[in-house]
């Protein structure tokens, strides 16, 4: 294990959120099952009190897990100097390849579901009768499972990265001629694939902005359209990644043959802001869909159009503020 302030913080957060995720997940599942059963007014009050306590604690845990995603990369960045052969985060990921890859895939998924749940929670809190409470509790128990796996993954990874491990870094993997990010578009578009990727990147981004604009103009957007938009944003995200690796990252770094995104964050730190905005934008589209999917019930249904509007305008932080 590499001991520094960040690794200790990661382990502390991991251990704490794992414990609270077990407690919160089981409690929310129990409450979910009890919620619809007939109960006396005293039992109902006690149930509500317990649910508010669980929600309060779990909201804090989930917000911490949101912050944990960037913290994960900051921690890996802090390990670079202790790993022989690592010149960027890529080198650190090579120490425990499978576990790191698993964490890197799980973290955005967890981030997305936590964001979706928090928006649902804010929508429910704006109502007087909490019509989404049962769904919220059920979804919380699922998200708690994700949080638990993610937290354990963090702990094992941080403990498993041994100092002075010898690794090869990005140059030997991301820059080889037969890398899939090059061969796949090249087989479709030919040798001029970079120009096509650049054009497609611009077209899909403008199309996505256009679609969101159309949704903002309609008073009651249909679920199918929001679902389509969600799928489109996933395709757009894949194209974004591909074009970043092959076209934009080498240009931004002024290193025409180097295609490592971790190096991009290191050499061009302002690209992190761009990535952050892209992630929030893409996830906002998905959050719009999940809010429509789970939030159309009772009193919450009346507040839904306004809520969707706020999500699509790109103000997810306006929701955080309300928590």
């Amino acid at each position: 294990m590499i001991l520094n302030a960040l690794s200790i913080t990661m382990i502390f957060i991991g251990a704490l959120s794992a414990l609270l995720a077990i407690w919160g997940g089981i409690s929310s599942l129990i409450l979910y099952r009890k919620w619809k059963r007939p109960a006396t007014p005293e039992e109902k009050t006690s149930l509500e009190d317990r649910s508010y306590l669980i929600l309060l604690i779990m909201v804090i845990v989930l917000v911490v897990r949101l912050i944990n995603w960037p913290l994960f990369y900051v921690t890996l960045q802090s390990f670079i100097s202790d790993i022989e052969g690592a010149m960027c985060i890529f080198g650190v990921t090579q120490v425990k390849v499978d576990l790191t890859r698993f964490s890197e895939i799980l973290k955005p998924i967890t981030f997305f579901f936590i964001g979706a749940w928090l928006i649902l929670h804010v929508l429910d809190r704006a109502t007087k009768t909490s019509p989404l409470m049962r769904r919220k509790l059920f979804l919380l128990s699922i998200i708690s499972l994700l949080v638990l796996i993610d937290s354990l993954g963090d702990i094992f990874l941080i403990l498993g990265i041994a100092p002075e491990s010898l690794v090869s870094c990005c140059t030997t993997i991301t820059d080889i001629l037969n890398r899939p990010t090059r061969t796949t578009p090249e087989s479709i578009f030919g040798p001029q694939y970079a120009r096509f990727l650049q054009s497609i990147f611009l077209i899909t981004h403008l199309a996505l902005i256009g679609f969101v604009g159309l949704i903002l103009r309609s008073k009651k957007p249909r679920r199918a359209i929001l679902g389509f938009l969600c799928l489109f944003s996933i395709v757009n995200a894949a194209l974004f990644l591909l074009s970043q690796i092959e076209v934009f990252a080498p240009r931004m770094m002024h290193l025409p043959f180097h295609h490592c995104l971790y190096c991009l964050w290191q050499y061009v730190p302002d690209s992190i802001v761009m990535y952050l905005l892209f992630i929030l934008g893409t996830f906002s589209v998905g959050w719009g869909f999940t809010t429509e999917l789970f939030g159309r019930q009772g009193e919450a249904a009346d507040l839904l159009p306004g809520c969707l509007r706020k999500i699509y305008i790109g103000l997810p932080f306006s929701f955080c503020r309300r928590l």
Partner: protein
Amino acid sequence: MASNKRWIALFVIFVIISLGSGCQGERKSIEGRCDYDGAKIEPLYAVYFTLQDGTEKNFCSIACASMSFSALKKQIKEVRVVDEPSGNKINASDAFFVESEIVTVPHVKNRIHVFAKKEEALKHIQKFIGNCNWVEHPFLL
């Protein structure tokens, strides 16, 4: 509503400041680094390309330089490498290249060593006998 505008204004200011400071930092950080992958250059293992227009490209290792060489071949006027025993810059055409189990630049696992004198290269080969051999000149113009 006014509160929302305040948040937006704060956010925009944050983005502008980040972009401004980031652009300045970027220029500083890329200077003196490898022109292939941006890694810090250890002078003893560096490779220098002088292009036809007089500009110079610096690389952290033989591995990075040889990966750039094919793309830049037509523009290159001169390639200089560093003699490992003395640390002197020499013309690549006069150098001897040897591959051994000793890694010089870990992030690319570069095992190619450069020598100005054949005797020094032979000494290295004898030191690591069995795991050491001559390498074809990687920078033939």
